[in-house]
């Protein structure tokens, strides 16, 4: 995989991770008018979010090296978080759609079937 592809994967997984963390928050769900979650579902969202952020960090480090990779990860996390809250304030549905598109983008870029 090329460096720029990994950079995109890092950004997309960061978006998915932050969106998952957002959707597990009871406070956010109430604000967005979503139904209540079962504890297991909440835990699944939480773990998905954390795992996606870990994948994002790893992709960023692989693309840019340890020093630059960590710096890129932290910086883009803040900016993507800001983008996410701006998008959420407009439409939670749009965030869901963008998250699905991001997931598809990650699949297309990483081609997990080829690894298997």
């Amino acid at each position, binding site marked *: 995989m090329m460096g720029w592809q990994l950079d995109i994967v890092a950004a997309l997984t960061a978006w998915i991770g932050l969106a998952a963390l957002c959707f597990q928050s009871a406070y956010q769900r109430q604000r967005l008018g979503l139904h209540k979650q079962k504890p297991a579902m909440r835990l699944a969202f939480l773990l998905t979010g954390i795992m996606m952020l870990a994948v994002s960090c790893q992709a960023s480090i692989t693309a840019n090296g340890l020093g630059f990779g960590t710096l890129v990860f932290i910086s883009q996390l803040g900016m993507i978080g800001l983008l996410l809250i701006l998008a959420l*304030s407009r439409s939670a549905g749009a965030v869901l759609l963008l998250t699905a598109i991001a997931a598809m983008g990650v699949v297309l870029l990483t081609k997990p079937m080829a690894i298997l």
Partner: protein
Amino acid sequence: MPNSSSIRQVMDHLHTWVGLFFGSLLFLVFFMGTLSVFDKEIDQWMIPSWRLEAVDIASFDQQAKPHLQDLAAGASHWAIQYPNDREPYMWIGWSENGEFIKYYIDPARGSLLPAPNSLGASGFFFPFHYYFHIKWKNVGIWLLAITANAMLVVLISGIIIHRRIFKDFFTFRPFKHLQRATLDLHNATSILLLPFHFVITFSGLVIFLFIYTEPGIALIYGSEIEKSQSEIYSTADIDLHGGQQELASVDGMVAQAQEIWGGGAIRRINIRFSDGGSPLVDIQRLPTDRIGYQTDTLTFDGSSGQLLQQTVPSSALQVQQFFSGLHLMGFQHWGLRWLYFLMGLGSCVMIGTGFMLWIAKRARQQGTPTYRLAYAVALATTTGLAVATLAMLCINKALPPSGVAAQTEVIAFLTVWLLTLVHPLVRIRRPHTVPHRAILREQLLASAILAFAAIALNWAESGLPLWKTLNAEHLRAIGVMDLVLAAIAIVAGVAAGKLNKQQPQENR
């Protein structure tokens, strides 16, 4: 013992008043710092003679030495900056009667470039960022230290007073009333960019570590203050008395340096001449491949080309260089450069919304002189600063090249900045008849108009429309700058339009 709520109240007061008192300086530092992220690119936009095609190899012997021998034969010290990806020109410099003289060279042709006729971003915005153009006794740098410490106080007190820091992590309610939306935006930019705010503030302090610790160093080393420098850089004094005075090929020394470093670009060469001795040639590496601003330096005997010394930074210096690199971004990473720029804008939003909150909470006191002054200062140092900067860019393009063009730009900047202070003072004279959102809207509209005017004037002056600049590699920075100006114009215009539509709520 005070309970947690009283601690929060104390911190709330601290956050409000330190923020208000230092907010103007903080916004100035962050705004100028954000512009400085792309200072070399703005330089090229402002100074057409610096729009050069990149060269693969620059030569001291062929391009710099003939000019230095012509112009500065008697100087005791020559400095030469090599071209790089962001600065395609080479410059030569020396001291004369206490003044540093600088000439720019086109490295492809070896010819001198015309005088820039502008301070550019690296000569005006960047110094404004770190010493406010106050050189006297390092007062500007000390003022920056006080401002940076105030920022740390504001950040820490902000965390303590924020009870629902995790709950509010993704909260932004733009459709609630203006004060609530402003608070949400203030919180979101503060929390999500907290690592950036901390690191950039702390690293900004560390850059000038050796200036801030000067009194302590003087106390320890007394009259042997120079010894501290050689200990920091692990260097020894070199005495080449009695050697040949003729300068050998510096290009040969550059090749040796690159072999030692295993490649790597050259940042700067310093040549020191002494009476009756060989010249000393210091060759500095450009640290584009690492975070730390490690400008490794090799010292050569200028007459024989023999390597005399390699600087080995002390551990204290290495730490300082790491934090300096984090702040100064000597590295070559465009993604990170854009992220720094956007995060810098985020910091400006955080400080600006902090000001707006203070104003909105005290809108009932519109008639009091303290309120009027605080409001005028807040507006002048936020939107006013943007208006003044855009006006400076317009003047840069509108003025014909002349010896006083650089001064005129600075005067225009300061005049417009002063006008943005006078504007709210005059308009708010009659309380309740002119809501403060109207004044903000006027300044935003001025920003939008000036940003569009800057693009138009640049096209008219250079004859280079967007499609041409974006297609040519060496002109791409100009095209991107035009696009950023267009984005500023649209955002400012839309914000002004939104303020126009919303019902006034400040008196509720």
